[in-house]
């Protein structure tokens, strides 16, 4: 637990990678960059401006008129390259930590492939849509699967996700709702496992990561509750999907399981100081920020704060999350520019 985690010995194994990530972090787009980007009239202008940022000439060899999907792919490729470089140069325990970060993408990929197969789409069509960080070898054989038990036995059992799947096997067949239940159950188990792993690492990593993961758990609980209003999901089933590693456990989660509308959810959040602030001022009126936006902002704040401390693994996780947010921002702005619908172009979440 202590080896490689304290100040002087951290740099032996992880110094190069921490330095590298801090360098990458300095290249994250700032408020000025976003101000320039929203002034663009066409996607070509966007490309010219991005050339002066850390992204450089990443679109230089793209022929013809730019499309938002092309920009999306290239933005994500840069993050994937950087992450793979970090992963290739890491040793334990950092390599396990970085692997944990990829599991969430694996879960997304699996659910995407199953949903696609349900809707009779071919694997070759779905494979390019998978996130590259979450690719694993047996992924494309999902086409042959029809029940969760089969899914586990043939594909998942060899992957690191096997431990997360145990609760899902009894689900009988794969339809829309059940797939969502599978996704959320996988994610809940993954979060709790990740949280336990970080606590096991101890030191500053545990402090930083457990706070971030606790917020993630609570945020999922809130979102699941709000999204389940008006669906056939029973309260018991809903309660089983809440990750238990957050602040809301156990009383908040119990209260959320009983909630039936938005105001009751808000009442539960009022008991917790940080979440009370998020619900204030959030609403669906024009000019207000939505609750999701406020949750994103809080997540960005936590991730930015993790860089204030040194000698811990949290910066790797935070870097990936901040880059994801940046990609979401740039794609939002690109869509607004491409469709010439500029009213909501300022709805990005600024990071620095």
């Amino acid at each position, binding site marked *: 637990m202590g080896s490689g985690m304290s100040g002087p010995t951290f740099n032996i194994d992880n110094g190069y990678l921490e330095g590298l990530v801090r360098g990458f972090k300095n290249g994250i787009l700032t408020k000025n960059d976003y101000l320039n980007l929203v002034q663009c009239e066409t996607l070509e202008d966007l490309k010219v401006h991005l050339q*002066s940022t850390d992204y450089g000439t990443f679109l230089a060899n793209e022929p013809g008129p730019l499309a938002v999907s092309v920009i999306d792919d290239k933005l994500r490729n840069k993050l994937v390259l950087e992450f793979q470089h970090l992963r290739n140069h890491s040793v334990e325990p950092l390599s396990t930590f970085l692997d944990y970060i990829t599991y969430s993408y694996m879960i997304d990929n699996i659910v995407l492939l199953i949903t696609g197969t349900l809707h009779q789409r071919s*694997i070759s069509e779905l494979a390019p849509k998978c996130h590259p960080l979450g690719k694993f070898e047996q992924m494309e*054989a999902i086409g042959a699967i029809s029940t969760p038990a*089969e899914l586990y036995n043939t*594909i998942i059992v060899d992957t690191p996700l096997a431990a997360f799947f145990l609760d899902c096997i009894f689900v009988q067949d794969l339809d829309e709702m059940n797939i969502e239940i599978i996704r959320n159950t996988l994610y809940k188990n993954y979060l709790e496992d990740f949280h336990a792993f970080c606590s096991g690492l101890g030191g500053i990593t545990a402090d930083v990561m457990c706070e971030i993961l606790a917020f993630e758990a609570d945020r999922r609980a809130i979102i699941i509750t709000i999204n389940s209003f008006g669906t056939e999901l029973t309260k018991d089933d809903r309660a089983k999907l809440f990750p238990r590693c957050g602040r809301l456990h156990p009383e908040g989660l119990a209260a959320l399981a009983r909630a039936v509308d938005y105001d009751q959810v808000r009442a539960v959040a009022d008991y917790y100081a940080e979440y009370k602030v998020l619900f204030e001022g959030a609403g669906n009126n024009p000019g207000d920020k939505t609750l999701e936006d406020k949750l994103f902002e809080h997540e960005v704040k936590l991730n930015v704060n993790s860089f204030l401390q040194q000698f811990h693994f949290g910066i790797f996780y935070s870097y990936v999350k901040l880059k994801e947010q940046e990609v979401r921002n740039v794609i939002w702005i690109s869509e607004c520019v491409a469709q010439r619908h500029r009213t909501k172009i300022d709805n990005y979440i600024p990071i620095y």
Partner: protein
Amino acid sequence: YCSTAVLIFRLLDFGLLRLTKRAMNISERDVGISFRSEEMTRIQMFLQNDSAYACVSEFGELGLVQFSDLNENVNEFQRKYINEVRRCDEMERKLRYIEKECRKCINQSPPDSGENPETPMPSEMFNLELTFEKLENELKEVNSNKETLMKNKLELTELKHILRKTQTFFDEAQLTLGQTSRSEESMSTSLLSAEAPIGSSSGDSQQSPKFGFIAGVIARERVPSFERMLWRACRGNVFLRQTEIETPLEDPVTGEEVSKCVFIIFFQGEQLKTKVRKICEGYKATMYPCPESQAERREMSMGVMTRIEDIQTVLSQTAEHQTRLLSNAARSIRVWFRKVKKIKAVYHTLNLCNTQKAIIAEGWCPSSELDRVNLAARRGTERSGTDIPAIINTMATRRTPPTYHRTNKFTNGFQAIVDAYGVADYREINPAPFTLITFPFLFAVMFGDCGHGSIMFLFALWMVINEKKFLAEKSTNEMWLMLFGGRYIILLMGLFSVYTGLLYNDCFSKSLNIFGSSWSLAETREKMNVTMETLRTTSTIQLNPAVTFQTGSPYPIGIDPIWNISKNQIVFLNSYKMKLSIILGVAQM
């Protein structure tokens, strides 16, 4: 001796400098080193819209004007000529694509004739764009054709391997012929019997087990995972045989070689068939229809061979066409790159100007070169064919002008070293002329080995003699560029090191005994009572200079070679060299 020689050298150094100063008053332009930075004038240029491009290109060729950015508050993509810059970017992209194809196909980078083309006019830019687009389209077409052909060839080759290998699988089954039992253990033997119908839907599924099969090719590294997946998904009810294809096959898209295996899967029933198919698709295994009877297979095999030969001919023709296209393009590609860069630079500079009504540019140029700048503007106006000349005004300004040092190829290295510590202010004394001698000399004082010094000198001499050849090569190796850029510095360092090496009497870390040592050991043995016995037993003997040293005749040049065999040579000489270096160095300050 040593110190007087050093003094003489320092006097030479200052004398050289005074000479160059006097020479500079005569014709400043020809001397390659400036004592202080040049006087600069701020000029304002009024250019007509038509002649602006030509004038700026002439200024560019001259290389004596620095333009200031008059549009600082404007975004990059809101400037006037941004569309033309984008067109240049697009042209560069096409050129890069063509270059990449050249390198891939002809396997060497395109040759550089060193030609420096003139800046093309805007009208020519349009022609260039058309040429590049045509070339790019042709290349893309040829590439896609080639890819299709290679894919077909790959499929046929794989089919050929399948037909050959499955022969062995079926043969094994034929060995135990005629057994049609329903028991599981003889699954391999009852696979195929001479009369049992395979895969067909006749009614007697009770009598003989009907086994369908799928044959295909899969990449070798996926085979273990594939086997495991098949076993799990079909609950062990399928049977897989696989062998390797010995020769690696070429992947049509990437051109890399991949090793593959032929596999054949036997199963019973329709459901298993769909499952197996889906798993094969998931592992990117290509499936091929394979006939069951040997005769059909042989026939197919021969047909496949002829088709492979046909495709090979067409493929070689396509490759030839591609090589022809690319070698044509490769001849002019460097020149095209230069032309496009020049166009882009001109439009970039035009973007810096104020373009409200006429084009107004502001910048700095050396006062002594105002004539040449005027001449360049006149040339530009003539080239563009307008009558109205460009007007160049000198402006009085409070801004600090930029520092401009003239250098030639010899002084360039020294000026670069001085600039690395900090660029001198406007009209401040330039330390570089002094460093021409002092820097190599101080190096030599610290280095002091005539053997290694002469090697340095010869190496630098070789670089200087072949400098034209090296400049034309345009190497990108950083270490080499650093050495080559400092060739004159290394030349002088080597030369002075030989001198100081002679003074230190140090050649490849050994002393040379040219004139005979002044410490006489014969006298020592007499006067200090040293016998052969003492010589053999004691490890060191301390020499008494009053006795041993031949007063009146010290070693003429350099340090006496006796020091080479003394035990305290290093202690003594290190201290001596360090003190000398420090005294000389501090005296500079």
